[in-house]
């Protein structure tokens, strides 16, 4: 019984007075010890801590909350995709613009390497221009 009472006390200290919160394997112990004077005193002490915890009951979530969260997430995703698409387009446009500017500003050099010209642009082959 001593070992039982030790385990009973450990469970009450951890899980409180209500047997429904105890591990399933210890619920029979709860039933056995709760009816003893020592067990009842242990449960009464645990119930005081339970009562303290029960004093905090958060407001239930507003019925509209779930809808608000879902819409916020679904709005966020397309917005991110749009930003990514615009970023890619802006990058491509600036690359084309840079290539064109470099192409037009470079002095003529008919002897330059055409492969370098088309891969990197005229800035890498300063002798080439139109």
């Amino acid at each position: 019984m001593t070992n039982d009472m030790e385990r009973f006390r450990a469970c009450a200290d951890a899980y409180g007075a209500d047997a429904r919160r105890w591990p399933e394997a210890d619920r029979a112990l709860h039933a056995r010890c709760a009816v003893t004077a020592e067990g009842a005193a242990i449960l009464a002490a645990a119930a005081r801590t339970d009562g303290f915890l029960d004093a905090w009951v958060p407001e239930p979530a507003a019925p509209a909350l779930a809808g608000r969260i879902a819409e916020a997430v679904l709005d966020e995703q397309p917005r991110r995709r749009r930003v990514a698409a615009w970023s890619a387009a802006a990058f491509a446009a600036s690359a084309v613009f840079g290539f064109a500017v470099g192409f037009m500003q470079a002095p003529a050099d008919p002897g330059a390497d055409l492969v370098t010209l088309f891969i990197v642009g005229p800035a890498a082959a300063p002798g080439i221009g139109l």
Partner: protein
Amino acid sequence: MADGSEEDHEIMAAVARGDTGAFRRLVDRHAGWGVGFVERMLGGRADAEDLVQTAFLRVWQGAAAWEPAARFRTWFYRVLYNLCMDHFRANAMPTEEVDEELPDGRPDGEATFAAAQRADRVRAAIAGLPARQRAAIVLCYYQELSQADAAATLGVSEGALESLLSRGRAALKKSMQRELH
């Protein structure tokens, strides 16, 4: 399965295909308890709603990679718990102030005020616990998770969970005793 986990798996499969209606259903099923859990972890409603929204954004973005190895609810608890821990790491522990505003004009105003003060004391006492003890108490006491699910959420053994609970409740008991003296 009577706990709705099978339906959650079906919904997640639809969410993985980009079904926005399924995503709305999923949020509808889990936002309420999610906010309740996170509010008790963080001690405030506004942060809790923001964090739950972040969690659902991750669900939406990662649905295609989700594998139904566990119940959705258990897995989502873990996501929320990890976000709470990130929040604690990124911010100093919040110090909750007691709302001094009285609910005027109601016959039970005084009783309501006293109850609000009691609730604030509990919230402050729980906020003062180390994060894992707090999480153990919120999961097992308030959310009524089984020992196995709570331990899985925290990533600890059931024995370690019991130890966290005992230490947490002992600290709360001290807070209560300080109040009485």
